[in-house]
Structures are given as structure tokens and as C-alpha cells.
């Protein structure tokens, strides 16, 4: 009835056939996807310095894209105005930041198209970013970034951060990268002495931090962006601003 054993039908539906390899159901020998697990960041950005004051928030970050130890790209803006109520700063892998930036911008466009009076709020963006970051880390394919979200929600200023592990928290003073070690103590000290900062005072503090970070962070640059959201003035991103460098003390330091 059959010409050769090579053409024999399977013993049962989806079962083994004589002369053929049988793939047991549920076991796959070939890898399903060829994506790399984990990463190393390529072009990176350093610290973000952010501070919440009485009627708003300030976020600042320099404009350097480092290629390892090489200060390669000196005009990489990384503070983004999302909408009138939200500003976003990012450190870490610059390519990942650009990808997430595109997705967020598309979200804003979709919202504009709906045109139904509802605008994205800072806490919503922060929550959504947290879910994305945590999801990616759970797949061992993180966005190698540290995001800082600032804005005003229900009349109150808001400042939050999410990192590549999906760890998220909100605070009045948030600094990422080297800023966490160098700028946070500076800012905490100043806020302890003067809890009700005005916009001008907050900005001066942040400028001072950018100066100190330029002296001490080996992957920093003296040009930076600074963004503010204020109850009265909306969201403004300014830059590039030059750090006020003062090397007079240099000869005293070993």
C-alpha cells in the first residue's frame, strides 16, 4: 500500500511517523528569540539634578553624551517638555532615552488628536514609565536609563524618579548618577536651612550643584539645560547654559 517507509503516515494525529524526527509537544530545541539578554549602555549621559520648591519644580542636566570615557557628543539635550504640566529628564543610555522620548511624544500627539479636554498628568506619566521600566527589567532587557519626572498635579508640585530596575520613588530632592552622591547632600542641607524656597533661590541652588558636579564628575560637561515648571509660568526649558567656572582654588588642591 505504501511505496516506502519514508512516506508513512503518523501513527496517530500529530503523532510520530516512521522515518521522521518526532518533536515532542511542548519542548522547543531552537531558541525562540535571538534578542540579547541584558546590555551594556553605549552612549551615556550623566547626572540629573532636580528640586521641588514651593510653587514648582526645577530639573537640570548637562548636555554631554559620553562614549565610555570619551566626551564624544557635546550637544545631547536630555530635558524634555512633555506638556504644559510635565517635564522629564533622563540619564543613562542616550539611545534608550531617544526611544522612550519618541513613544512619549507619540502619546502626546494621540492625546491631542482625541482633543477631549483630558491632558496627561505628571503622576500618570511617572506611573506608566515605572510599569514600562519594570516590565523591561523583568524580561532582562532594560531601558538603561534613570528618568526624573516633574510637574504640577492638582495644584501641588510633584517630583519622581524611575530607574532601569523599575525602582520608583517621589521626593522633594531627586538627583541621579553622581548627583545622588554629590548634589543631594548639598541640596538637603540648603533646604533644611530654608524650607520655603522661592523659584529664584531654587534655581541658584541647582546652578551651584551643576558647578560642583562639573568639578567633581569626570564624565560631565560645563554646558547644561535647566527646566522649570511653575504654577504661574507653565513649563519652560532653557539651555544651553554655561557653568560659572571658578578655578581659583585649583592650585590649592593636590
Amino acid at each position, binding site marked *: 500500500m505504501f511505496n516506502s517507509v519514508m512516506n508513512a503516515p503518523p501513527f496517530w494525529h500529530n503523532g510520530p511517523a516512521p522515518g521522521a524526527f518526532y518533536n515532542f509537544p511542548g519542548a522547543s530545541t531552537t531558541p525562540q528569540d535571538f534578542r540579547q539578554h541584558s546590555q551594556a549602555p553605549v552612549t551615556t549621559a550623566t547626572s540629573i539634578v532636580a528640586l521641588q520648591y514651593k510653587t514648582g519644580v526645577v530639573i537640570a542636566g548637562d548636555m554631554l553624551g559620553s562614549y565610555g570615557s570619551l566626551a564624544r557628543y557635546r550637544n545631547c539635550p536630555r530635558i524634555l517638555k512633555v506638556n504644559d504640566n510635565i517635564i522629564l529628564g533622563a540619564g543613562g543610555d542616550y539611545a534608550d532615552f531617544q526611544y522612550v522620548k519618541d513613544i512619549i511624544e507619540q502619546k502626546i500627539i494621540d492625546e491631542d488628536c482625541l482633543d477631549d479636554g*483630558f491632558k496627561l498628568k505628571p503622576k500618570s506619566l511617572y506611573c506608566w514609565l515605572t510599569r514600562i521600566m519594570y516590565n523591561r527589567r523583568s524580561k532582562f532587557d532594560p531601558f538603561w536609563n534613570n528618568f526624573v519626572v516633574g510637574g504640577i498635579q492638582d495644584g501641588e508640585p510633584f517630583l519622581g524618579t524611575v530607574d532601569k530596575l523599575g525602582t520608583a520613588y517621589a521626593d522633594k530632592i531627586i538627583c541621579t548618577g553622581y548627583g545622588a552622591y554629590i548634589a543631594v547632600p548639598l541640596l538637603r542641607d540648603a533646604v533644611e536651612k530654608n524650607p520655603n524656597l522661592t523659584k529664584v533661590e531654587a534655581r541658584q541652588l541647582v546652578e551651584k550643584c551643576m558647578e560642583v558636579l562639573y568639578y567633581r564628575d569626570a564624565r560631565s560637561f560645563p554646558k547644561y539645560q535647566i527646566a522649570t515648571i511653575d504654577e504661574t509660568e507653565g513649563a519652560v526649558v532653557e539651555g544651553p547654559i554655561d557653568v560659572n567656572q571658578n578655578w581659583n582654588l585649583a592650585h590649592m588642591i593636590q
Partner: protein
Amino acid sequence: MFRNQYDSDAITWSPQGRLHQVEYAMEAVKQGSCAVGLKSSTHVVLLGLKRSAHELSTHQKKVLYIDDHIGCAIAGLTSDARMLSKFMRTECLHSKFAFETPMPIQRLVAKLGDKAQVTTQQYGGRPYGVGLLIGGFDKIAGPKLYQFCPSANFFDCQAMAIGSRSQSSRTYLERNLSKFLNAKRDELIIYGLHALRDSLPNNYELTVHNTSVLVVSANEVCKLIEEEEIAKLLSQLESRSKREETIEGEEVGTKKDSEQEQHERDLSMQLDE
């Protein structure tokens, strides 16, 4: 005359430019018992007349919780209503989980509309056979009431009634529309109960077992009202005979009423086509 030739599937146009399957689906809504929705400047109330298949079984649920700030009344195929309310609940939960924001009602209803539209443009399926009254409270937009139809249309309403014999309820709501905006919570519910009762034939009454009421507002999480409170509110309804006297009194002589009657006749003609 040619209806039967062009009504086999949802994707065939009739020569008159109608989709008969979609219109048949709208008829299914009229088979369900009456559901009423109305809103004031602060509250939204949804009411449903629960039917029971026979004396031994419980009355069919008519009003459902969707989220803390959204509720929904159904009329038509209950199984389709379950699928749609499951969808709405998932969307609301997603909004809370991913965006820490309660779902704006407008957007939820638009998503429902998009979902239902697919069923009116695909071969092999059928439109949803259920009409919904979706009521809720938005921080930005305030109280909202939407009517959703199997045709995938949705309408922002001040008050609405759908289902079997709902024309009388709609008439009551139209006549009393101006009173709703500033009504207090209990007053609004009683207006709704009157509207619901008007859909019943003369020898039937609203009871604690066949009436369900849901209220949602800025301060009140979406909740079905307990039997005791319903009993209390039902006792405050005007007696049937007294209401009929009042209606007759209104109908005598004023031009405005005859215009309304004409309008009702026009509406009911459109529905019977």
C-alpha cells in the same frame, strides 16, 4: 419590501442604504425590560426594572458596577452585556494600574463604540444585542450619562430610558427635565423611580425585588442601593391613580403639550421603522 434579501449578514447594505442586521440588533434592546438613567449637577442615578424568568428564579441583574466612579444599566441580551461590562471593567482597571488615573468616562464609551463598530463591519459575526446606559462622575467633566447602542453610536444624555415600553419613561423624563439639574440625591432617585414605573402596565407595581438603583457622585462611590433604602424611597412615590389625574390635568388644553405629543409620535415612528 426587499428587507429579506439584504439582511442575511451584518456587512450587506440594502438598496436604501441601511444595514438591516444592525437595525435588528437595536430591536433586541427593546426586548429587554426598561432601564432609566438621569443626572443632576452633582449625581448620576441609574435604575433598572428586573425581570424574573419565572416565580422560582431570581430577578435578572440590570445595573452593574464598573468602577468606583462608573456604573452601567443594561437592556437586551444579558450575555452580551456581561462581555461588554467585563471589557469596561478591564479598561478601568488598566487606567488605574498604568496611569494612576480613573478612566475618563468619555474615553471609555469611545473605546466601547470602537469595539462595537468592528462587529458592524465584519463578516461572520453579529452586532452586540444590548443597549447600555453608562453613568459616572469625572473630576473634570462632572456627572456624565451616556447611551450606547448596538449600532456603535453613543450619545451624551441628560436623561434617557431604553428597553421595553420605555417610551412612556422617556415622556416622563422629557416633561420633567428642567427639575433634574438642581435636584438633591433622593429627589433625583424618586424622579427616576417615577420614570421607571411609567414603563409598567397598570396592574404592576415597583417592588423591592424588581427595582434596582445605582447612584454615583463626587462623594459617593458607585454603589447599588440596599433593599431597605429602596423600600423607603418606593413608599415616597405618588400613588398611581394620583399621577394619572395629574397627567390628565396637564394634557387639557395647553399648546405645549400637544407639541410634545406630536414629537413623541414622531420619535415612536422612527423607532418602529
